[in-house]
């Protein structure tokens, strides 16, 4: 299963499963990154990290290490 951090800019997908626990998981969930959410990767910051995604109608930035917890549907 690929994770969100492996996506390229403009690539779209659907969240299959959210790994991790605690505060990182919580923040992702309340921002709408949960099972079944459609996500589009928009861009990566100039130094390669963090990344910006489009989810549930708004723009969200997160680090690649956090995106690595987001398992995507194949």
């Amino acid at each position, binding site marked *: 299963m690929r994770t969100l951090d492996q996506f390229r800019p403009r690539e779209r997908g659907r969240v299959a499963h959210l790994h991790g626990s605690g505060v990182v998981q919580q923040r992702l969930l309340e921002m709408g990154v949960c099972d079944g959410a459609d996500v589009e990767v928009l861009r990566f910051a100039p130094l390669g*990290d963090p990344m*910006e995604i489009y989810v549930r109608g708004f723009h969200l930035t*997160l680090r690649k290490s956090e995106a690595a917890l987001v398992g995507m549907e194949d």
Partner: protein
Amino acid sequence: MPRTLALVGNPNVGKTAVFNALTGLSQSTGNYPGVTVDRKYGQLVLNGHRATLIDLPGAYSLAARSPDEAIVVDALLDQQEGEAPIDGLLVVLDASNIERNLYMLSQLLELEKPIVVALNMMDVAKRRGINIDAGKLSERLGVPVVPLCAHKGVGMEELRAAMSRMLAGDLTPGRAACVFSASQDEAVRSLLADLEGRKDSLGREVLPLEVFRVLMDEGGYAEKRLVRALGPEFGRFLKQCRQNARNNGSSLAAQEAKVRYAWVHEVMDYAVTRPKERPRTRSDLIDSVLTHRVLGTLFFLGLMVLVFQFIYAWAGPLMNLVDGTFAHLSEAVTTVVPEGVLRSMLVDGIIAGVGGVLIFLPQIVILSLFIALLEDCGYMARAAFLMDRLLGWCGLSGQAFIPMLSSFACGIPGILATRIVPDRRDRFTTIMVAPLMSCSARLPVYTIMIAAFIPGRRVLDGTLNVQGLTLMAMYGLGIAVAVPVAWTLKKTLFRGEKPPFILEMPSYKVPQPGTVARKVWREGSAFVRRAGTLIFAVTIIVWALAYFPHAQTITDRFDKERSQARALIAEPAQLKAALAIIDGHEAGAHLENSFLGRAGHFVQPVFAPLGWDWRIATAAMASFPAREVVVATLGTLFNLGGEVDSDSPGLRETLRNATWADDPTRPLFTIPVALSIMVFFALCCQCAATLLTIRRETRQWRWPLFTFSYMTVLAYVGALITYQVSTRLGLGG
């Protein structure tokens, strides 16, 4: 009886605009007890019903992790100490971002309080092709929904009408909308029963909704508070309850989000239509440049250069204006007040001191204008996005960038802004290094030194001014030093995991002139106020210490010299010159003999390796309460020392002409001395207000003490290296 309503919503939904539109000028602020989170109140009168509206901090959900999120939850559950029970909610939703905004609404409905929903930013939603049927939404939610464009004032009448219905008690409370699994309900019930038995040791009752949060938020604020109060045994029981509630499914937090978003989708299918494709907005277009790998970085750097160049270029004429005004004032006082101790206090003390500080008002206004504009248009989140990796190298997150940038205006709002940093270790590290950012109070020190001693040459075909570059270098120094300091702190005192960086990127918007003006006014008026009160008073004291005892023996000695000169020199011009020299020597002798002079001589050896004479050392010590006092003190000291040239009363010229007391041919301020003073003030923490704010935010005296000590050591060592190296490089000649 006046009722209490709470204003709730996600961050960046225009809550403040709604609050301002509803309450107008009847606002007041305070702090919640225990934590220093602002609480804002306003008074409402609708149809004869009076109410207090509380503006709660913005939050994304009721799953509290940080103290200021906990305030929202506690206030909503009527558990917040010092807060009246809340009779109803005004929930502001961002219509252009309705999906995620409905998430928290699903939690708010469970509070079973009357709710009015304000659907703000309808214009933006329409532009993006999002159509929301407010009637259907209202029908589905069971609460009134009012479409709004708060910044244009559209829909405010309807909102007032809906709220007066709420105040009249005509609204039924919101209803729980989401259904959770039976095993979760069971777990809540057994926790409730357990807590009922512990009511006495806890000293209060725990509501079902709080218990629900305790259950769902693993490691959250609600859990921590209960475990702290009831001991680890309760923690084990809670763990067991969670295990049962999970029922072998995914984590409870994930289950909650899934249920709530399923409900959100049901509601949206009924009341909202929106385009399938991601709309290409103006914000996207701007972002494709401003967060671009190359262009975005260049823009960021260019912006920083621009800000500092403009501070220099624009402020010049205004500063001359202020300078001129004080020169006239000084002349006027000299003609009106007869020579003596009072005139000396007015001219050498107050006018030279306060005028020397107030002259920097234009620069402070320009800098705070830039910061307010950047904050209000939404660029700060982009700056955090660009800087996160860089800040990551010293162990901080991009969120720390916003407090850091605010610290360029003033360290105090910067330290307060660290409340947005959720992780305690990260937050404390940010607090410790925020005072290293060059705040506006350093600007006077930099400006006077640069204007007097750094040549105004232009480089790169006249596009860049060396003075502007020096100023930028001083700002850069603070940043450059903050990196290793933060890194060391994160490796030692505040060791721990890197906190998350999960941040909404709000759409760009045109800055609201009112908001920007308010922020600039706040900075400017605070500066003037301080110059008019504390600095004014300190100036008088410094003057007094530098004037008295004003020994008669010294006056007599120079009177004798004067009469000798009159007897010996016949030619009037020569006599005048000779008398001026004697006057200067007399003033210098009085100053050296003064209380301050003696104290300065006593400590001067400590500062000698930095190239400072006793007057600079004295001024640096006198500036302990606030950095800009150093400029006022220098003004007073050198004026009293009789070094003032009547043709150019400005401090700039005075400093340029200052010489060592024991060798009048040797200029006191050389480029190395000016640089060492600037470096010292760039790195020191001579600001009582900052130290007290750190005390308040960390709630311990040791952190302000630590900050002051490490910064003073850095400042001394930095100034020492600067002076010694630049002298050896020949800059002193």
